[in-house]
């Protein structure tokens, strides 16, 4: 009796079982996946250097969505407890997705340790946490390797003020053995009319520049990210838009002093 050719029947799922044939996790963004051909490696630490407001969360959520579509669990350790639930709500419908919100950012590494030990996740993200001590990073790297889980650490880098000071956390310079290091910076976006016939403006799509600093040939990819217009501002076909055009001279008024 002829042996059925299973590889023809389930080529994609069977290929996942062959370690050598497994690609890393993809962002699902063509330009970025082309710049990182091997993907975000499983069993390794990937560092993402993205200053506050530069679009790092957007990229991480895109990576989570692609991983969930591939039937793998995703956990995000939100060390700052600042992720808005509506921003990640669509991920809960894609598969096993959890957000861990520790009491303090120092506990984020302990949470990542517990999550990695379960072996239930294909991707664990630690978002905006202080740099892990070397010994902690080594333990997490071993756990990620044992469980074949991709561990992505978003570095909590500082944002500079125009007065020369910085706010947020200090720049993460510790070398904790990341096999891939990505750097993200965002272009400045203009404010454009969001809707035809409405005088209000809204941030235009902006371009994120993602550079591979480690883990392959230095490459840069540009990703266009839009700013979601709130549903309250979208007109409905059955309801007449009664909003008046925004006047050019309308601006915040100084508080009058008595």
């Amino acid at each position, binding site marked *: 009796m002829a042996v059925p050719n299973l590889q023809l029947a389930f080529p994609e799922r069977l290929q*996942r079982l062959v370690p050598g044939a497994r690609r890393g996790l993809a962002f699902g*963004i063509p330009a970025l996946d082309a710049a990182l051909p091997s993907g975000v490696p499983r069993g390794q630490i990937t560092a993402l250097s*993205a*200053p*506050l*407001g*530069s679009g790092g*969360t957007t990229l991480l959520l*895109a990576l989570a*969505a692609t991983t969930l579509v591939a039937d*793998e*669990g995703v956990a995000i350790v939100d060390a700052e407890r*600042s*992720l*808005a*639930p*509506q*921003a*990640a*709500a*669509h*991920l*809960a*419908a*894609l598969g096993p997705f*959890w*957000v*861990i919100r*520790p*009491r303090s950012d120092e506990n984020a590494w302990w*949470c990542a340790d*517990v*999550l990695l*030990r*379960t*072996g*239930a*996740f*294909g991707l664990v993200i630690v978002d905006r946490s202080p740099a892990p001590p070397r010994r902690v990073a080594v333990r997490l790297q071993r756990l990620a390797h044992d469980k074949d889980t991709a561990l992505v650490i978003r570095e909590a880098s500082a*944002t500079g*003020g*125009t*007065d020369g000071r910085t706010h*947020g956390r200090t720049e993460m310079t510790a070398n904790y053995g990341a096999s891939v290091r990505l750097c993200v910076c*965002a272009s*400045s*976006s*203009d*404010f454009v009319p969001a809707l035809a016939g409405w005088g209000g403006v809204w*941030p235009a799509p902006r371009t994120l520049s993602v550079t591979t600093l480690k883990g392959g040939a230095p490459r840069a990819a540009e*990703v*266009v*990210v*839009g*700013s*979601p217009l*709130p549903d*309250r501002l979208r007109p409905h076909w059955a309801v007449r838009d009664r909003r008046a055009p925004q006047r050019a001279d309308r*601006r915040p008024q*100084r508080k009058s002093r008595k």
Partner: protein
Amino acid sequence: MRGKPRVTATSREAERRGIAAGMALAEAKALVADLLALPWDEERIARAALEAVTAFLAASPRVSWEQRADGQGVWWVDAAGLGSEAKLADRLLTIATGLGFGPARAGIASSAIAAYAATFGRTVARARGRTGIRPRIVPPGGDAAYLAPFPVTLLDLADDLAETLRGLGLTTLGQLAALEADEVDARFGPEGLAAHRRARGLDARGPSTPRDDALPAVEVELGGPVATAEPLLFVLRGALATLGEALRAKGLAARELTLALQLDDGSTAERAVRPARATSHADTLFDHCRAALETWQLPEPATGLVLRAALTVPAAGEQGDLLAPRWADPAALAAAFDRIRGSEGSDAVAVPGARDAHLPEDGGSWTHGRTDARTHRNAKPSAAGLQTALRLLGAPVPVHVRLGRDGLAAFRHDDCWHDVTGWSGPERLAPRWWLGAGAVRDYYVTRTADGALWLLYRAAGGQWFLEGWLD
């Protein structure tokens, strides 16, 4: 000897010398001067009975033991389908004699009460003058007739009921069985009705398959007082491995464990550990027990540890998917989440959801349920490509704002000024009108010099707040 100083059981030698059960101890000692009287030892009797049950299992697969009120022991042995009943009776008697249970008697019948009566068969037959017959085997269907001449005392009744029956002149089982069941129930109640059924050869008792119903438990002596968690955790892991093996051997999974610590002052501290799912996996149980230990303030150092499976359910296997990239043990995942909740708070593990609300802070919600209590409400993937994600501070933070000729010029947050290079707004939101005019907010999306987009609003009183940023 049991309770009152009366003889309960005798050896063959004592019986031969005239000692009988029920005889007063003083009378027995008067008959035999060198009589050796031993106190009644329940534990020893139970051990001997268990030993006999084990031996009888070689002859029949279903054996059970019952101790009667008078101290006599009865073994119920299933004789169905085992060939010659007479040979089985002889074999059982041989085993009993070999174990030292003498004089043992055997009887075979369809009901337990008739079989018990059959063990006295020879005596009854002699009384009726039919010597030479060994009526140890009651033919099927003949239980009631066989029981009829036996005295009512065979039923091991309570004293008051036995006295009442005797007062009514009901001395034999046949007389009792001849009464109507309704009348017996009305006059003597449930106990009388049960006696009436047995008198008719209807007895629910009988042999059963031996079962070990004791739930697994592990007890460990720590060797000395232990005041820190590390040695306890080390011992705990080994104890849980042993307990898990015992559970799996019985086909069980623990729904609840009792973790008891024997303290240095002699007291015992107990805590119940309930995994989210019943499991016998030592690692999963260890995570739960460790979470319990981490939050346990002990008044004294521990000297011993006892683990008991307090509540068990039949183990249910779960088949993983061969082609799935990974398969997560639900129990292990639940244990990990329980551990995080125990350390970081009950809201530490969350699933995001979206809500239809105007205010940014009301646009989403976290569900802090169990692993299977997931919410997908209003979850919709973006159809317009990659969208910037919103991040919100735990609570809006008051900020200082510098206004220029063209409007917003800068704001101060975290002790540094951010130059505003563009902004949109104001967008007035007043969703909670019932809170008064103070709830009105004028929202601005501002762009700073580094390209970051911030969400600010001005409250009705003129105070500015930073609520979050787009990332």
